[in-house]
């Protein structure tokens, strides 16, 4: 029998209300394997509020605070202060918010928490849109994607604006630890959750979470699409610790983006030229990341920033 490459314990209960093939559900299951049971989660309005809580049940074996969509960062600051006041030094305080509750509506509280050096982990699970309310575009929706609010008709070709680069926004706050993760690479995701748990100060995880109904693909393809997102360079896996970049899934050559695009109904209207353009963007982003890894590897640790306020 093959050795287990992940912790065997489950902190997410089965019977939750996620769609079949849900990327965010797998992201939560894996994240909690890394964070462990001594965790308090703050969850704003998002798919996971619904997934976890058909009353009177809960899908989470850890404590959960259900907070408004804009205030996850503020909740983390409060939970941390409360845990410290109670002497619960071993408790991990973590937020688990969708891309809307992180990069759009939740952005100011996230920025505040990062800037105040709150000792907590903010996790953004990125299904690239407001999927819980029926597939509306968010700042994290990719350019050219169909959503109900970015239709494809006549001259309209889906979302006009490019995807917001939340990692750039977060890294501008110099967090003590930040990483991208992808449930299609479970060992990498769990290891990053463990590293985030071990660090102190503001920490951030950006987890890609494929959404079968929102991205318009068949539920069994969640893992295959997640793998492609990383292997094409569209969603590279890396971590940044005190400003030093490290790519955790290095590739000599990137896969073409064609298969990733063609597998999803939200890109059905794309022309070959549009696919080529996305491929060029993926390569440029990957090269930028490789460059940063080289540049920051040579630099000594960045100037000290106080870990907690």
């Amino acid at each position: 029998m093959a050795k287990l490459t992940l912790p065997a314990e489950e902190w997410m209960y089965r019977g939750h209300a996620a769609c079949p093939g849900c990327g965010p559900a797998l992201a939560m299951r894996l994240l909690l394997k890394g964070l462990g049971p001594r965790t308090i989660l703050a969850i704003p309005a998002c798919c996971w509020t619904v997934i976890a809580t058909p009353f009177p049940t809960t899908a989470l074996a850890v404590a959960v605070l259900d907070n408004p969509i804009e205030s996850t960062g503020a909740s983390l600051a409060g939970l941390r202060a409360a845990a410290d006041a109670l002497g619960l030094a071993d408790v991990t305080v973590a937020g688990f918010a969708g891309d809307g509750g992180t990069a759009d509506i939740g952005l100011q509280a996230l920025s505040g928490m990062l800037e105040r050096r709150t000792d907590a982990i903010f996790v953004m699970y990125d299904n690239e849109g407001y999927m819980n309310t029926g597939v509306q575009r968010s700042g994290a929706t990719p350019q050219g994607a169909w959503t109900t609010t970015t239709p494809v008709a006549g001259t309209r070709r889906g979302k006009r604006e490019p995807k917001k680069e939340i990692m750039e926004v977060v890294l501008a706050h110099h967090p003590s630890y930040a990483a991208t993760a992808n449930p299609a690479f479970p060992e990498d995701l769990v290891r990053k959750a463990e590293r985030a748990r071990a660090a102190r100060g503001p920490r951030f995880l950006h987890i890609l979470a494929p959404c079968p109904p929102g991205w318009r693909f068949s539920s069994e393809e969640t893992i295959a699409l997640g793998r492609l997102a990383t292997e094409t360079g569209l969603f590279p896996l890396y971590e940044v610790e005190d400003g030093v970049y490290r790519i955790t899934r290095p590739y000599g050559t990137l896969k073409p983006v064609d298969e990733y695009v063609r597998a999803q109904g939200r890109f059905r209207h794309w022309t070959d030229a549009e696919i080529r353009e996305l491929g060029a963007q993926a390569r440029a982003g990957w090269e930028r990341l490789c460059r940063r890894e080289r540049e920051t590897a040579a630099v000594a640790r960045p100037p000290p920033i106080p870990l907690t306020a």
Partner: protein
Amino acid sequence: MIEIRFHGRGGQGAVLASELLAQAAFLDGRSPQSFPFFGVERRGAPVTAYARVDDRPIGVRTSIVTPDVVVVLEPGLLRTTSVGDGLRTGGLLLVNSPLPPARLEAPDGVRRASVDATAIALAHGLGSRTMPIVNTTILGALARVTGVVSLEALGRAIDRYVPAAPAENRAAATDGFASVRLGDPAAPSANGAARIPFAVTVPIPEGPLARLPSSSIRTGSWRTLVPEIDERRCTRCNFCWKYCPDDAIELDGRGYPVLVLDACKGCGICAEVCPPHTIAMVAASEGP
């Protein structure tokens, strides 16, 4: 006034069915009403929608608890959802099923009708084998057995409000109208109780906190496909366990996967990630 309750699965078009019925009744010059139950509208999850039709404006705005007609878009729901709740004596149960009406279980005194809407919908290219879009077919059958709307008005409502393939949907409604079978009322059972199974009720805990693990909720009823694991070719790599978003695979003492039937929603990820392809997705009705 006639009160109709639709039971389907998220993605099957139960909500649109109730809207189309109301639109068709409006085109017939009647006063309809249509609204869904606001709940977990996940693909595969049980979904309820309501419609009322009368010749005068309808004042009542509540959900329907004692329907005259219950329409079931997916026969598997008969086993897992209390579709027969409140169905009036002398009412009608219309089920998407290849079975003759006499083989359907129904509360006492309820007339039964069946139509093989899945076969009709697929013959017209509506939906997929795992998720056939049967709403227009079953509306054709409903028009026939209740007369609540005319087939002609239903066709016009389809043309106007169905977003894709209106011609195919109209043809499916016509086939549903033609092939629906109406049976006799269900005979009273020995103890006089309704024989439709009732939903598993979850005890409500005292206090404000939800502490009951969700594992008491049997999301296995959502699935249309179920994994079949061929243990002889299994290499015990545990990929199926690792990638399951529903924690529906356990590993036994020897490392072989064991499916948790109550939880598996049938997404098919395990079959897709299995390196030696030892997992096949089979129709839930034929699986374990």
